């Protein structure tokens, strides 16, 4: 029971953290609930399909289908998050100004939400397919412990969603002035962490050199399997034993998105002098 609690809790928390950050980052955009809800449902449906075809997926590309699929999903999520952050650096000021004015809708808001629905869907797809597969395996074993394993899974799902909800509530308490800066930083770290994980899957498939493997080993004082390690892993992409190539991907994604955000903010100053400095 404890084992299934931990597994489902972990997958659920990872998905809930991403959904929480996305919910927080889209605060004030009209119709975001519908888009994110659609992303959630599509992700859940996709997770069932992926779990059902795990065997087929594994056999693709000379047995490296799993890695390519994961790297592809992660790469797509990184691009979407990068686009969100760069878009937000330009429009964050407008949003902050308009959030208080009820009923004012932003034209670009819809396309922004569809992008984030995709991020939510991809996160749920990845974490959800592992959970579905695990619970399927549990239900297959007809031993008497099956019921307690499923109970552990349900408790784990609730606890994971609960902790994710707490983080969301914590984010929401941040004053609006710092709000877009805070969620922007979270999304930036989340995207960099996903880029590092994408590299990890490509190294595992032997498609990328590992460079140094591991580059460092901090498992002695912050094991990745510990509660703090798991939380930091899903939030900022912490790894106790990363390969050198993962760190390269992390830093490259971080620098590229940051540069894009700065560029977008600077060009905004010329085109929108009135709202300049509203979030600064």
């Amino acid at each position, binding site marked *: 029971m404890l084992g299934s609690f931990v*597994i489902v809790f972990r997958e659920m928390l990872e998905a809930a953290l991403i959904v929480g950050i996305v919910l927080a980052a889209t605060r004030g955009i009209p119709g975001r609930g519908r888009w994110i809800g659609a992303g959630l449902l599509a992700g859940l449906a996709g997770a069932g399909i992926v779990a059902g075809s795990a065997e087929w997926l*594994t056999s693709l590309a000379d*047995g*490296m289908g*799993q890695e390519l699929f994961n790297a592809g999903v992660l790469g797509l999520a990184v691009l979407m998050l990068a686009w969100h952050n760069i878009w937000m650096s330009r429009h964050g000021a407008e949003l902050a100004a308009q959030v208080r004015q009820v009923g004012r809708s932003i034209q670009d808001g819809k396309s922004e939400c569809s992008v984030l629905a995709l991020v939510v869907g991809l996160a749920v797809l990845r974490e959800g397919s592992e959970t579905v597969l695990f619970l399927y395996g549990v239900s297959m*074993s007809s031993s008497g412990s099956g019921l307690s394993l499923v109970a552990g899974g349900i408790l784990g799902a609730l606890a994971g969603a609960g902790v994710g909800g707490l983080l969301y509530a914590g984010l929401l308490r941040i004053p609006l002035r710092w709000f877009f800066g805070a969620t922007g930083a979270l999304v930036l770290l989340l995207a960099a962490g996903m880029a590092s994980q994408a590299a*990890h899957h490509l190294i*595992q*498939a032997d498609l990328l050199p590992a460079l140094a493997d591991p580059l460092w080993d901090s*498992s002695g004082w912050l094991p990745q399997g510990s509660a703090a390690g798991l939380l930091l892993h899903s939030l900022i992409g912490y790894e106790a034993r990363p390969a050198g190539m993962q760190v390269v991907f992390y830093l490259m994604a971080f620098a590229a998105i940051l540069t894009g955000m700065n560029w977008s903010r600077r060009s905004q100053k010329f085109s929108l002098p009135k709202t300049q400095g509203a979030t600064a």
Partner: protein
Amino acid sequence: MYRTVFLLCLLLPGLSSAADNEYALVIQGNRFIPDELVVPAGKKLKLVVENRDDAPEEFESYSLNREKIVPAHSSIILYVGPLNPGAHDFFGDYHESTARGRLIAR
């Protein structure tokens, strides 16, 4: 012609060493068989993990930095290393209490 044969002969040791560095693990009854493998340190290894159970399993190792699902009644390929000398623990994430093993790199 002779040169081609000569070059092929040069390649052969490389090919055979790649085959030498292939190791097999079987998952049966939610356990790894064998649960301990002695492997060379400092070399890239190919691990073939076959799951003979009805339930899916996930091969996971913090020390090897690897994580891969092994569907029921199928095999997966994993590349690991080059490894530092010593023991590298791995486990089955879906049956962590019984599915445990390690690679001993020498």
